[in-house]
């Protein structure tokens, strides 16, 4: 895989005095409980995955599941205890401090849960901060920062201090700051968790709009499964430091790998997650109705139309060629079946 921007090979992060030694002795079979007895806490346990260019990987887990720790290993805010991490083919853990700073100045941007704005700088200065640290001329950095202000829609507030902004606005500043150096890799650590539900939805939509335009390689951390479903290309679900399942939203909803994952998927309204392609039958049936739907439609949007039919409905691909069929009963089964007591 040449276009894997982030690549992790059995990454471990274990907190404690003798973590490194104990990890070596355990030969890779890390059991959280035995480690805990010896005073070590396992943050990340054998994480291996790749994120390819332009892809958005959402890491979902409850608090204490090690998702933030994993992100901090990959941004090297903490050093991983074991394993290999490659950023665009570079071995991250072997980088010297100077090279690391260089990497961060040019390739990485990060957004934080509590915004982490500098209280003594204005919006504009906050956004220009990474540029100025890098040594960009003041005028250029201010111009660039002004572009960013426009990008996140904060025109007119560039001379405000963070304390004068609402939570949503502050996070817009955080996003703008992380994008100021035009990084290829974008880390977001629960960026919307501290916001009110309505603002959160607004910010998610905004975020999708930005990503549509920018096409960054993204690692997004969240504890909100709905958010993960809404945003992700692929989702990694973590529990106790272990990645329980890593797959596309649809596959996770349809085939939860473990009991733990199932608990999340049970409550998910499938019609909002699945697309027609996920539920269609490949077999070519001649007996189809006049209605045709695209295979990329989300079920919710076409359910009513399909349910009004009695026969199979044809599914088309982007070239308007029929690639499969779906029966109205399948829609009903998808939406109402498979929930708690119906399995």
């Amino acid at each position, binding site marked *: 895989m040449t276009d894997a921007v982030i690549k992790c090979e059995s990454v471990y992060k274990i907190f404690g005095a003798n973590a490194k030694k104990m990890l070596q002795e355990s030969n890779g079979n890390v059991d959280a409980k035995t480690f805990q007895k010896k005073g070590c806490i396992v943050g990340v346990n054998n994480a291996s995955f790749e994120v390819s260019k332009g892809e958005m990987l959402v890491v979902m887990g409850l608090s204490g599941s090690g998702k933030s720790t994993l992100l901090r290993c990959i941004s090297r*805010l903490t050093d991983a205890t074991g394993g290999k991490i490659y950023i665009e083919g570079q071995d991250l853990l072997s980088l010297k401090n100077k090279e690391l700073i*260089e990497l961060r100045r040019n390739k990485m941007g990060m957004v934080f849960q509590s915004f982490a704005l500098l209280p003594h700088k204005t919006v504009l200065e906050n956004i220009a901060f990474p540029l100025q640290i890098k040594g960009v001329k003041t005028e250029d950095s201010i111009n660039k920062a002004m572009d960013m202000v426009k990008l996140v829609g904060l025109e007119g507030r560039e001379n405000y201090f963070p304390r004068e902004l609402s939570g949503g606005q502050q996070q817009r500043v955080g996003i703008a*700051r992380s994008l100021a150096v035009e990084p290829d890799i974008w880390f977001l650590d629960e960026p919307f968790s501290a916001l009110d539900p309505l603002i959160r939805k607004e910010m998610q939509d905004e975020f999708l709009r930005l990503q549509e335009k920018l096409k960054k390689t993204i690692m997004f951390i969240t504890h909100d499964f709905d958010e993960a479903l809404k945003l992700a290309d692929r989702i990694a679900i973590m529990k106790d430091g272990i990645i329980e399942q890593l797959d596309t939203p649809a596959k996770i909803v349809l085939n939860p790998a473990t009991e733990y994952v199932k608990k999340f998927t049970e409550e998910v309204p499938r019609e909002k997650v699945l697309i027609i392609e996920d539920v269609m039958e490949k077999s070519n049936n001649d007996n189809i109705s006049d209605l045709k739907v695209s295979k990329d439609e989300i079920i919710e949007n076409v359910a009513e139309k399909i349910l009004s039919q009695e026969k199979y409905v044809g599914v088309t691909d982007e070239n308007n060629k029929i690639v499969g069929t779906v029966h109205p009963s399948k829609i009903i089964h998808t939406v109402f079946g498979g929930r708690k007591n119906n399995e």
Partner: protein
Amino acid sequence: MELLKKYPKLFQWLFLLFVFLALCFAIDVPETYKFIRGQAEFVKDPNQSTYTLFGKEVRYYAFDVLWRLPPLLGWLPIWINDFLFFLLNEWMPMEFWNEDTQEYKTRPLVLQITRNITASMTFLIELIREILLGGVKTVVSFTSWDWIDKNPWAELPGLPWTIVVAGGAILGYKLSGKGLAIFAGLVLIYISVFGQWKPSMQTLSFILVAAPLSFIFGLTLGIMAYKSKRVEKALYPILLVMQTMPQYAVLTPAMVLFGIGDHSAVIITMVVAIPPMILLTLLGLRAVPSEVIEAGKMSGCNNFQLMTKVLIPTARRDILIGVNQVIMVCFSMAVIAAFIGAKGLGWNLLLALNQLNIGLALEAGLCISLIAILLDKMSLAWANKQEDYFGNLTFFQRYKNSLFFAASVLIGIILAYAGSFFFKDSFNYLSEIPHNKGISFADFWNRGVDWIWDTFFQTLKIFNTWLITEVLQPMRALYLRMPAVATLVLVVGAGYIIGGIRSAFTVGGLALFIALSPWWDRALVTTYMATFGVVASCIIGSIVGTLCQQNKYTTNFMLGVCDIFQTFPSFVYLIPVMMLFGITDTSVLIAVIVYATIPATRYTIEGLRSVPPALHDAATMSGVTKLQRLFKIEFPLAFPHMMLGLNQTIVFALFMVIIGAFIGTEDLGQYILKALSDKKGAGKGLVLGICVAFIGLIFDNLIRTWVEKRKKHLGID
């Protein structure tokens, strides 16, 4: 038995008390024992024995070991002295170039270093002093006396007081607005009109040197401690001892190393002011959210950028509170440093107190307090000030404060120049109002004191005698009656019950050090005075605090009063009590009580206020009465915080007891004061200071450990 299971700690305490009392009664007072007034350990006495230790003769009383431990640490001060002497006069002689005689001279290294520090400090102080007051020494240090004789015009003129008043007011306006500006103006005008200008500016110049230097050193050390665990661990015990060490005690070693004068006063002040600065820097840097640090790192900061552009600006407020603390310590030292020859208000205050001229002392004290309050308010305003965006202001708006100041300098100079024609034959009142030429109310105050004495003498005397004979002396006798072993058992036992084996060892070690020093009896007297003060302060403080807390306005009022009282340099408290009670133990104790009541009140209020309002509402909805709520909900929850207040109260009380030695008490403070006038007093002063610090630390350790456990139990923090 059931009671026992329910309260296991209670049983432990009772058992400890029982053992303690049993020991007290079992060990009789030896016949040879008496509390000696005078220098017990250096006076030949028929009951004294001697033995030689490391070539030094140590005298001690042939006490029963259970009754008093032998003063095995008696050699410590002597050693410290000899060590300092050796360091200063014999260690590492080297050749140094001498500017005056133009030749090389052999001098010990440390002596040369201290002399160099002395010279640079003196230069700095003179420089600032002469900017404020005028003089020739700064010019001299760049040229020579001969040159000055030839060029009599080359003299710093000194700022006219009008300019300083305007400058103070403008600074006050910039920091906080009209209120502070008016206050600053009034204070400075008061100082000038009452003829305290010169000593005030002397004190100010001394603070303007000591405070910035302390700030720089404290900040640097604080940053180093933040970056390296090892530095922090090395600094921690020093910081701890310095917090409880009476400021008197550092005077003597500094005197030996740096001599007498303003420069060593500055050095002393720095020694005392740096620890709080370190602590607050450390605290501020620790409080920076980890995400902000990570954001800095992800923006690509290197270590230096992270410190200067992210950490320090974010911790700005705490660091500036540190500056405030530094300034306050400098003021309290301004008086104490007068003992080793710092000129200024403190010197005048000391002189007036020595002559029992209460009126003059009051004026000097008032001046110090006013300046202290002013600088306190200014530095706090600076700390709380939030930056404003000024990119869109016009030139005039942006620089209006500087412009106003420039204008006032001009007007001030013109006024002073005009004044020199107007007041041709006498002093130029528009430039400087000389000392003793201003308005003075000293006589009025003195007459007031006389009147109080004439009118209330009998009442006060009766009260005084009653207090001393009925309360103080029995209490003192009780403390002195404790056998050393019993006291040690009590301290170690308390440590064990509260904090387990670790705590027991710590407090036991601290107590043992005092017991083995030659000043155990004195330490007991110090403790008795402090205990009396603390008990009284706590009763007053908790009652006043609780009453005031019932109402929002009284709460704010009381906290404001506490703020103001806390800014007074501790010495100032001695003035009114001497006015009322003369030179007796009562005066000291009352000063102790007044001074120590401040933290007691403040922490009571803050503790009660920290009870979450939701609990308040929950209690009200359960239908409790006001008293029930107070006793069942608020007190138990506020208790840990109030205990921290007790901690502060003890430290304050100990400080005041030691300072009270100036009036004349028979405790450790008296010895520290004596060590000041003793040529070989450095070691003694230091060890005595450590003894006092250790008394404080014993209580500090016990209370802190208890509070931490209790807070964990209640789930606070």
